[in-house]
């Protein structure tokens, strides 16, 4: 079966670094050379990536490849659903698609859900093209597909990925006020833009001081592909009355999103807080241009919106009534 389309991930597949997180990203051969070349020789090019849509689109424009791209799914949904939509939109079979992603996690997810799709690492791109495509000398075919490009959203596909997540053997380690982690915690508050509810930038001295009277939770995640290290931070401080706490910081590095880890982290924190002096936990979402994806985070966990102006998003939950969210595919340490 000859392949027709190549669907690319973005961060660390088309460029080094993460748009929206890093100040600069640097184009790899895939975007500077391969995409224009392949599109000119009859290969349909698509994008399937977990990014803020605006950030990724800006980068694609900056690298001047937008005109070669026939289809895009830039969102936070799982990539298997997105690839199904892409196949429908292009009206080609899943077995006519190659998916290129540097992440072992994403490739394995796609292979487990959609075995017809050939999922490869970027380093194997040239060899894959050589053996699985009929390159042409004409740009006509891409133009045809572009003309048919339907922006209407394909029907939402539901795919059960919980089984896959269970197979990952994810282990979460949550620590409280671990002084050895101060530099990494400060770094995450400085760098994280997307999954960051309040975007408070804190220095190492701030973290050190907060550890004296407040609770700083850190989250480390490992799975059977390896150790992702310290990738989540939550800071809880006293608010108003001493029995009320507020989440001053809640953030996760974007490379571990989409696996239910954010809910599992909150569960672990709540389990600990049930033993603390607090009765109620408040939380705030402060919108920025980069963090729209977490807009519904607290409501989705059962936090209720309380007092606040129209453009203030303050939520509250009764700690004893909090319902644990996460699926059972995690173990904790």
């Amino acid at each position, binding site marked *: 079966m000859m392949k027709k389309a190549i669907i690319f991930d973005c961060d660390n597949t088309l460029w080094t670094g993460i748009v929206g997180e890093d100040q600069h990203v640097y184009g790899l051969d895939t975007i500077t050379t391969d995409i224009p070349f392949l599109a*000119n020789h009859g290969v349909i090019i698509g994008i399937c990536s977990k990014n803020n849509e605006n950030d990724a689109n800006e980068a694609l424009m900056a690298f001047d490849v937008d005109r070669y791209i026939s289809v895009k799914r830039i969102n936070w949904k799982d990539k298997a659903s997105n690839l199904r939509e892409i196949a429908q939109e292009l009206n080609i079979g899943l077995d006519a698609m190659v998916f290129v992603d540097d992440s072992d996690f994403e490739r394995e997810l796609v292979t487990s859900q959609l075995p017809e799709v050939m999922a490869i690492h970027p380093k194997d791109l040239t060899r894959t093209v*050589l*053996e699985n495509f009929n390159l042409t*000398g004409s740009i006509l075919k891409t133009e045809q597909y572009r003309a048919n490009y339907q922006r209407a959203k394909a029907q939402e596909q539901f795919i059960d990925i919980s089984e896959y997540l269970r197979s990952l053997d994810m282990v979460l380690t949550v620590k409280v006020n671990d002084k050895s982690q101060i530099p990494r915690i400060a770094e995450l508050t400085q760098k994280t833009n997307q999954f960051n509810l309040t975007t408070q930038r804190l220095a190492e001295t701030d973290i050190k001081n907060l550890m004296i009277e407040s609770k700083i939770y850190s989250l480390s995640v490992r799975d059977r592909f390896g150790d992702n290290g310290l990738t989540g931070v939550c800071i809880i401080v006293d608010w108003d009355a001493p029995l009320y706490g507020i989440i001053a910081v809640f953030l996760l590095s974007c490379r571990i999103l989409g696996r239910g880890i954010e809910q599992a982290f909150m569960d672990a924190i709540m389990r600990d807080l049930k033993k603390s002096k607090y009765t109620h936990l408040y939380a705030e979402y402060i919108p920025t241009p980069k963090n729209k994806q977490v807009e519904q985070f607290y409501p989705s966990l059962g936090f209720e919106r309380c007092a606040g102006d129209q453009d203030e998003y303050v939520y509250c939950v009764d700690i004893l009534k909090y319902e644990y969210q996460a699926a059972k595919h995690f173990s904790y340490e």
Partner: protein
Amino acid sequence: MNERIKEVMAKAFGVPVEQITEKSNQDTIDNWDSLRHMQLIVFLEREFDIIIPDEIVGNLISFKLIEATIQKCHGESA
């Protein structure tokens, strides 16, 4: 190996070897027509002692694809 590929390409397309880079492809080399393409295939087979399968002959239209072909052919015969 890269230098040998560049020399073969330069000879096949009749251009100075300095003009060939690892990013060269059919779009960057004006002389790359179908006649010279077949010449390239013959030169590559001779220079690297390989037989390029018919089904991929049409795909050898960039430096990188040529390099991958030689690696593939050497890998499979070894």
